[in-house]
């Protein structure tokens, strides 16, 4: 179980893996996530599902090495096994329950940031298969960190790229690009979906509100079990406490208290930093031997 079937590096720090998890692959839907434990004694790490293949029994995950645990994921190679992979967790995207007829007249704009681009892909693919017009904005710090360009092109109507440093596409943030598309180029969207860093989703929501576009965001909160047991993932949405793991991960972007969500996300930052140092230290000791 949970064997890494294939692995490729999308950038020096971002890897994509297909993992054998047949039960999960059989029931996964766009918008859901999973939890992995890379190796025994490790953390339970929530990751959004980037794709699934029911016939092959595989799910695709995309991870950026940002700390010890994501480092552990990225160090697994083809043929290695995850200690555990569980899911799908959370609610599917709301459009999953709708038919092509229900969605007639809708025009979606997806706003993807960094590794958040990966989970946008199955959603776009799903809508595209129903014939719904979908445009996608993909943003990254710099050209080298852009992922899923080719894949996205094949399933969306228009792909727009932006980079913070202007090394590729529009020079600026996703919000600036969205504004440009709507205000200057006269593009009309009935719904937006933003997936990426919390800060990006916050500003994407503010921009969407200003433009009068309803927006859905996918919250990557802290979690332990992912089934509603611990409440680590609680977020305030519309003034009410919600559990992102079972009621989310997708919520109405207008309603989410992003400042609280960002503060809660950083709860273990000091400890993560310490773990990182310890891990680096172990690695160095390992090298000298």
């Amino acid at each position: 179980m949970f064997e890494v079937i294939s692995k490729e590096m999308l950038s020096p720090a971002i890897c994509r893996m297909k993992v054998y998890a047949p039960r999960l692959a059989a029931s996964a839907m766009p918008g859901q996530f999973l939890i992995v434990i890379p190796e025994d004694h490790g953390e339970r790490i929530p990751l959004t599902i980037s794709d699934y293949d029911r016939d092959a029994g595989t799910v695709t995950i995309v991870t950026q090495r940002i700390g010890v645990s994501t480092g552990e994921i990225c160090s697994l190679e083809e043929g290695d096994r995850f200690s555990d992979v569980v899911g799908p967790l959370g609610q599917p995207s709301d459009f999953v329950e709708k038919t092509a007829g229900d969605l007639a007249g809708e025009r979606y704009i997806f706003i993807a940031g960094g590794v958040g681009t990966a989970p946008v892909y199955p959603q776009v693919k799903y809508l595209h298969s129903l014939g719904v017009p979908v445009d996608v904005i993909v943003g990254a710090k710099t050209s080298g960190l852009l992922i899923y360009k080719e894949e996205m092109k094949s399933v969306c109507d228009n792909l727009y790229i932006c980079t913070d440093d202007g090394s590729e596409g529009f020079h600026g943030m996703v919000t600036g690009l969205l504004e440009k598309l709507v205000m200057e180029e006269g593009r009309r969207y009935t719904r937006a979906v933003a997936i990426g860093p919390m800060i990006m989703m916050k500003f994407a929501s503010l921009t969407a509100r200003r433009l009068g576009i309803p927006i859905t965001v996918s919250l990557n909160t802290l979690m332990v079990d992912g089934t509603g047991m611990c409440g680590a993932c609680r977020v305030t949405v519309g003034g009410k406490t919600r559990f992102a793991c079972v009621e989310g991960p997708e919520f109405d972007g207008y309603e989410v208290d992003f400042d609280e969500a960002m503060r809660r996300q950083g709860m273990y930052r000091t400890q993560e930093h310490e773990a990182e140092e310890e891990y680096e230290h172990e690695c160095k000791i390992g090298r000298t031997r």
Partner: protein
Amino acid sequence: MAARIPRVPVREQDPKVRATNFEEVCYGYDEKEAMLEATRCLHCKNPRCVAACPVNVSIPEFIAAVAAGDFKEASSVISRDSSLPAVCGRVCPQETQCEGSCILGVKSEPVAIGKLERFVADWTLQQGETSVVRTPSNGHKVAVIGSGPSGLACAADLARLGYEVTIFEALHKAGGVLEYGIPEFRLPKERIVSAEIERVKSLGVRIETDVVVGRTVTIDSLMEKEGFSAVFIGSGAGLPRFMNIPGENLNGVFSANEFLTRNNLMKAYRHDYRTPVYTGRKVVVVGGGNVAMDAARTALRLGAETSIVYRRTEKELPARREEVHHAKEEGITFMMLSNPVEILGDEKGWVKGIRCIRMELGEPDESGRRSPVPVPGSEFEIEADSVIMALGTSPNPLISKTTSGLETNRRGCIVADADGVTSRPGVFAGGDAVTGAATVILAMGAGRKAAAAIDSYIKGLEKIHNE
């Protein structure tokens, strides 16, 4: 009649020492102590202890065997009625059940039934692998959801009857609340919980971890696509309650479930695990049940100055007396008749204190307990950098929401009769998923009753099929 000897005291780790480690608090009886304590049983003609035990263990009978030094016999007497004696001997509320009704308790101290049960169970585990006879398969598959006390008990009984049982566990490790909820210092994981689970597996029970029923699979798909003739739901009560007071989402406020899961299941207290945990220097635990005691004593062991805030008085504490006693010995402060009204945060959004209001006991409510009422104008503040909410739990709606024809009540509990029969044919339920948060022994008893009901249900189907 000869003068009765007093209850044989049980050896425990020194409170000062154990407050800094996660080793088991109680060492339990050795053979001599157990045999001596066993002589205290009066062997009542109508043993009230048996009636007071939720699974009616033949208590005087096993105690007689202990007194005679025949521990093997004692073990087989207990195992007629209990599937998890090493667990129950440690975590059962004996003072309100068997020991609470012991006639010796009227004038002096009751027989230490719990400690004797634990002794017998530990002795049995130490004997190692006893030759387990696997019952040949009868060809019927039964699915059990959850590997906690009710699921394990149900699965073990069904396997003994020849059913092919698969337990589906949502977490990565089997054991349910025994693994994620109850701390190591009360219930050792490797030595006791894993050993009990291995025993169930040796009967032929398969355990599939990482399967969230309601997400990864559904009961409908298990029955329609995977060929399970019946399903037992023993998914417990895992959803934490919060108070819905201002400041509850500040950094440093946790549910007891989160705090305990990080430490018990995820072993945050050990350096060889990567799990992060935030404890703080001054921890306030809100609540008065066993979970509150567990959380407080865990925080204390992680180095925090810890107090418990409870809205009634010590007399009403729902926690076991032994746990309260241990908590006090270890240095936990109890603030009674106090109820939080707000959690206070610093400018960075971290907990810095908690505002409480004094309570007084008013008229008894429907449960017979005098309900606490706030004393106007009596608010006060306590300094704290971490707050742990231990206010009880309710069943997870994941299963009931994804299973057609399964009735639940107002509190989200699955509706089932005493045999675990639910509104959906072939689907049985028991334990906390039905009762709301209760005890290990009640859950185990419910699992066993459901196993018997599942057996007759499937035999009934067979009969109809053959006619």
